[in-house]
């Protein structure tokens, strides 16, 4: 209905559609609300990423922060929160503030400041997706910005050194995770059975911690002790991101799915036939397995070779 919308963001890995929390939030919200978004993954091209990602481009409008992007989507009638009461809407704002204040510093630290993580995972990953020579400069700049943000917002006296700040922000992050877990309890999503903005934000922040394989994984270990949060991330990934997780384009994955379905049906038919043939063979040994050959030729997939080997 509306103009086509294109989202530019960082790509994903380790089963995630994107590594950046903000991009994940926007993508998740788009899936929840049914917004038709074309996702444009930044890869090693000369179109250098400018400033903040994710960026939503719709006709001539360019919007850059997740909150603003979500507002824009809501104005275009893609609203995942229409079932929420006013109080639940207020709760959403409050919990998002909690995430940004308590969890984001530790997330930034894990990705960009923790030396082992940064050098072995984050920097190479981002550098491989930015064109030379920006790949030499941009990851460093992102790391410095993250450090700046943490030290300015949390590094006031009496916490002067980075180690003290680190201890404090990880404590806060663990407390935040505990609070989220208590709030989620046993329900499927934060406000009942349908995912909302809050689920999108929580997913955006938690999924990178949960899935990315870092050498130093303090937060991940803590998160894994909170099974309901892990379940929330897994549910959202399997229900809404199945097509992008395997890395194929959605159209390609659909045909692959269709092929897989056909193959499964054929395999089932063949196993039924084999049973019947077994019975027939017991009754009359000269009965030729004609149907099996015909079906093998029609299958044309991987399944045909094992059957080839098995047939008498």
């Amino acid at each position, binding site marked *: 209905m509306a103009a086509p919308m294109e989202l530019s963001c960082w790509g994903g890995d380790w089963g995630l559609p994107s590594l950046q929390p903000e991009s994940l939030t926007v993508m998740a919200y788009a899936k929840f609300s049914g917004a038709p978004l074309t996702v444009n993954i930044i890869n090693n091209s000369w179109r250098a990423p400018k400033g903040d990602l994710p960026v939503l481009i719709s006709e001539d409008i360019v919007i850059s922060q997740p909150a603003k992007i979500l507002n824009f989507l809501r104005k275009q009638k893609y609203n995942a929160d229409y079932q929420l009461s006013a109080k639940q809407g207020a709760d959403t704002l409050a919990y998002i503030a909690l995430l940004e204040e308590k969890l984001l510093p530790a997330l930034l630290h894990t990705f960009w400041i923790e030396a082992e993580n940064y050098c072995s995972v984050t920097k190479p990953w981002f550098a491989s997706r930015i064109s030379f020579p920006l790949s030499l400069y941009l990851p460093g700049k992102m790391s410095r910005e993250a450090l700046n*943000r943490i030290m300015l*917002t949390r590094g*006031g*006296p*009496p916490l002067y050194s980075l180690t003290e700040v680190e201890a404090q922000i990880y404590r806060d992050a663990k407390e935040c995770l505990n*609070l*989220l877990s208590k*709030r989620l*309890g046993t329900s499927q999503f934060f406000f009942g059975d349908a995912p909302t903005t809050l689920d999108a934000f929580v997913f955006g922040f938690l999924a990178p911690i949960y899935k990315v394989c870092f050498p130093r994984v303090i937060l991940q270990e803590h998160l894994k002790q909170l099974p309901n949060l892990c379940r929330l991330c897994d549910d959202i990934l399997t229900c809404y991101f199945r097509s992008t997780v395997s890395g194929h384009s959605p159209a390609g994955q659909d045909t692959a799915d269709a092929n897989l379905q056909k193959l499964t049906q054929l395999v089932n038919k063949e196993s039924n036939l084999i049973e019947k043939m077994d019975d027939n063979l017991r009754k009359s040994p000269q009965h030729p397995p004609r149907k099996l050959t015909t079906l093998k030729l029609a299958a044309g997939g991987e399944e045909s070779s094992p059957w080839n080997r098995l047939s008498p």
Partner: protein
Amino acid sequence: ATLCFQAFLQMCNLPIQVVCRANAEYMSPSGKVPFIHVGNQVVSELGPIVQFVKAKGHSLSDGLDEVQKAEMKAYMELVNNMLLTAELYLQWCDDATVEEITHPRYGSPYPWPLNRILSYQKQWEVRRKMKAIGWAGKTLDQVLEDVDQCCQALSQRLGTQPYFFNKQPTELDALVFGHLFTILTTQLITDELSEKVKHYSNLTAFCRRIEQQYFGGHDKDSSATAAARSAKRSLLR
């Protein structure tokens, strides 16, 4: 922020005395005002003060269950995130306000040129922080819109109840009262900020109720001057 503490301590029924000092920021262990001085202990910032008071046996949030405590913490972060940052933005990043109100007030205890130097230094610090969290690019209108959203959320959460968690006041009530009262009673260049808050009648009623209940014990003059002085102190943060 001073009012938040006063309100909180009043709610716990602990008597306090407000003292204004020019070097308060340096006396405080964390560099933040206000702070409390009890016996030979000095504690600053709302979090540690709440814990200190709890250790002495007074707590306002014992009656809450786990989910409510999580909600309370989330709302406190919302207030800190939005209202506090908006107040700082208005004081230090809005040029008109900075020139006319903040610079003179902040530098008033010191002789020239120290007053200008210190206030410029503080302004530079605050602007750096705003840039780091992404508020530097915001216009005044956007900041006011954020404040409006925050007030709307608080108003919806409060609804028709006397306090945020029904019958008993908690730290959240103290924090919200402190910020809203400051916004409502402080003179700035424009009234837009206080207009935003006044738009929500249950919030203004809430402030009035807490003021009468916990600050009405003193006679009107002293509470008015104490409130005005603490409003001034909180602006000098």
